[in-house]
């Protein structure tokens, strides 16, 4: 298969970027999108040009490292990560536009690689539980209703790739933050810090310069982990309730 790539090239965080066109020739249809870029990069290097920088790690759809906005859609067409996108999804001769995740809070490092430390800062603000040290507690000693456990596991599926913020017209990270707050907050082990976690994560998110949720649901449409925007409703509810309880002195954040 042959394609024409329009790739965003940018030398560093503070320099201006531009699109450059590269041919992608003789690409096997079973190649993943990242493998296609590897082939193009080899050609670029052979021609003495700088290869295109992009993020990747596990290449099996679970680490959340790959990014890329392909033809305007984070992680490209279909639901899944960029590494799980195969070239057979495209038509021979397609012009494919590849951009970095465009979020103010994710500064571009180089070309298509962005710095997603902002998401780590949200985790640092409350993405943890207080665990007792010592011998392991009895298994199944804490009863958890199945629906609650399932809901928590659904939220825990978030791989923290940041596609939600990249897809959101407002660059809002609400889907990520709501998933992280729910995954710990729903379970008894995460309950003691629940209010503090919710409020601190939201405040950190606000401080980092992410936008506000307008209920467009673009995040949910691109999320490779299938996180539901119902977690955002839960976050809205929990944040306001925790803030109200803080205001009247029923809790401290």
């Amino acid at each position, binding site marked *: 298969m042959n394609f024409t790539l*329009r790739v965003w090239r940018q030398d560093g965080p503070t320099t201006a970027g531009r699109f450059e066109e590269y041919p992608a020739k003789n690409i096997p249809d079973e190649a993943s999108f990242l493998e296609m870029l590897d082939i193009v990069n080899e050609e670029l290097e052979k021609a003495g040009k700088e290869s295109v920088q992009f993020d990747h790690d596990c290449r099996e759809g679970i680490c959340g490292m790959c990014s890329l906005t392909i033809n305007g859609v984070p992680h490209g067409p279909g639901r899944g990560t960029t590494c799980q996108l195969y070239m057979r999804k495209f038509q021979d001769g397609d012009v494919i536009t590849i951009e970095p995740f465009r979020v103010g809070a994710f500064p571009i490092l180089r070309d298509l690689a962005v710095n997603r430390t902002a998401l780590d800062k949200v985790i640092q603000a409350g993405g943890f539980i207080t665990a007792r040290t010592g011998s392991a507690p009895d298994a199944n000693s804490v009863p958890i209703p199945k629906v609650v456990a399932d809901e928590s596991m659904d939220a825990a599926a978030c791989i923290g790739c940041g596609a939600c913020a990249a897809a959101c017209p407002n660059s809002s990270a609400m889907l990520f933050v709501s998933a992280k707050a729910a995954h710990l907050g729903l379970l008894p082990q995460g309950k003691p810090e629940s209010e503090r976690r919710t409020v601190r994560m*939201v405040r950190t998110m606000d401080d980092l310069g992410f936008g506000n949720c307008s209920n467009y649901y673009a995040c949910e449409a691109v999320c490779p982990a299938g996180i539901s925007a119902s977690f955002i409703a839960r976050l809205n509810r*929990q944040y*306001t309730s925790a*803030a109200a309880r803080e205001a009247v*002195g029923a809790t401290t954040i």
Partner: protein
Amino acid sequence: MSASSATSTAGIPIHEALCRWVFSSIGKKTIVAVTGILLVLFVTGHMLGNFTIYFGPDLINAYAKHLRDLGPFLWVIRLGLLATVFLHIFFTMLLWKENATARPQKYAVGDPIKTTVFARTMRLTGLFVVAFVIFHLGHFTLMIFNPSWTHLDTELHGETVHDVYRMVVLGFSNPIVSAFYIISLGLLAFHLSHGIGSLFQTLGLSTRKMRPVYEAVARVYAWALFVGYSSIPISILIFGLGKNTIK
């Protein structure tokens, strides 16, 4: 021990906590949602009041007189509405400004993922509706475009009252005014098609199961308002409602 427990329950001053909530992303959105509910209630009540026109001049004129007779309480409602509209717009503008700066560089390929046309045009339809409301107040409340309407009087149970019935019939007999009215109400329905469904999510009432239900109900409600409001100019202009009273 006692000192530490005292500080841990006191927390931060209540006004500070309130301020933090109000200006947080979720706080601002919640204010827009709550003021939105109040405005939807107003729009609904206003439409039900308008329907009195179908029961003849006496009923709508009596209804209008009752409203006027509220006196100072009417002003409380008016100022409350004005404050609600102000808060709704003010916090939307704050959110808009932040959202614009959150993505300094736009995508070259702009593919509106999933978002509906109703959601994408919220600000545009909202601003248009504000412009319409200003016209509408000047048209029927202040009567600045037709000062002679202030002298439209009629007899109601032996009292001289303002003839709202004839004023409305005269107003909507102008096809341009009616067309502008119907277009504006259509844009309001656009606004509410996203707005009403969206507020359940913002207020945290939505769940995976209920979201499609809220959205469908919101869509139906928004367009029912459109049909209800538009029926009046259409009845006057096309079906000749009240024609005999203005000759």
